[in-house]
């Protein structure tokens, strides 16, 4: 089981009570997001662009690895017990 920590505003947008979601059976960040989307329909669109890239101002940390810069959706979870999804400080900038 993996605990996924979501940004508070994203959790609220998706209608969740808390910010932590438990997900099972994911071996990569991509599979984790697929599993999240089954639990919380629509969350994939908020995290991933149409071409499969993680949105430019979203950081997904597996341990010390930020998936957006290190493997994208293919980054393996390697048995991690938790994953942190965070808003990047760069998000105040205009969209690229």
């Amino acid at each position: 089981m993996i605990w996924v920590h979501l940004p508070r505003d994203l959790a609220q947008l998706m209608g969740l009570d808390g910010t932590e979601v438990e997900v099972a059976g994911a071996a990569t960040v991509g599979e984790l997001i697929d599993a999240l989307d089954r639990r919380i329909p629509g969350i994939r669109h908020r995290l991933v662009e149409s071409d499969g890239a993680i949105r430019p101002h979203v950081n997904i940390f597996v341990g010390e690895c930020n998936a957006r810069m290190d493997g994208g959706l293919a980054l393996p979870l390697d048995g991690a017990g938790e994953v942190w999804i965070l808003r990047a400080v760069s998000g105040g900038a205009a969209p690229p």
Partner: protein
Amino acid sequence: MEGWEILHLVQDRRTGVLYAAANSPFYGPSVRRSDDFGRTWDRGGTPPAYPEGDPEKVTRVWHITPGREGEPHRLYAGVEASGLFVSDDEAETWTEVASLRRHPTHDSWWPGNGGKCLHTIVLDPFDERCMFIACSTGGIYRSDDAGETWRPVNRGIRAEFMPEDQQFPEAGQCVHKVSASSVQRGRLYLQNHGGVYRSDDGGEHWQPIDAGLPANFGFPVVAHPRKPDTAYVIPLISAERRRFPNERLAVWRTDDAGGTWRELREGLAEPSYVGVMRDAFAADDADPAGLYFGTTSGSVYASFDEGESWMEVARDLPRIVSIEAARPA
């Protein structure tokens, strides 16, 4: 929706539902709806997106136009990078009107200061199969078959940022806004990056009508809801400065289809160093017509006598990018 960039907010007159072009710098573009006049908003359906492998991405939704009376669930959305989407399920899912970006002049579209955006969608009030879109840069395009095919209708509109011998291209103009008369077939008013224009034949030909204005730059243009020869613009001093000429906040009205213009500023602040954005000026359908605009400094002004006098009805809001008239549901 706090923290979301709302580029356009519009009421669907058919249902009373509000739709917002809501964009998050973190979570991307969406079209969100409110069934209770803005008290609560849904989370947005599947957002407009170009197909995987497309060289462009949808980064923001700029404009939403509800469909016609006979298309009860239809909405159109204009997006950045410039493209047009249609929804037939009240914004739950979107399909690109792909014929538009397939037009051979698509290569002439470039981002302006605001981005490469499709910001204007006009459904012809007289012909159910005719519609117009405008994008910056790119210009105005017309479809006569409900979006199946498109053609640029920019003849006579100047692209002042091009070399002298190339200033009237087929496409690539920086059109800022288009407003159609709902009472005279074929009449359109257009605010260009430089220049105000009128067409009497649905965009086939354009003539400049800015001779009596203090500046030819500006963003919004509003056709009067019942008087075909009356239109309103809000000129700004230049592309660089984007504020009012002579530090005087003013709306300008023509009552003779652009032959002459009159400055309307009773009740407006002076001096003023602000501007008005392309979707921040609207008319209602009352008689006399109500007019409403918002400034980049967060003031909202209203006129209930067709522009003769104005009152500030809100102030100290954030920068205003969208004003629409709506009725509480």
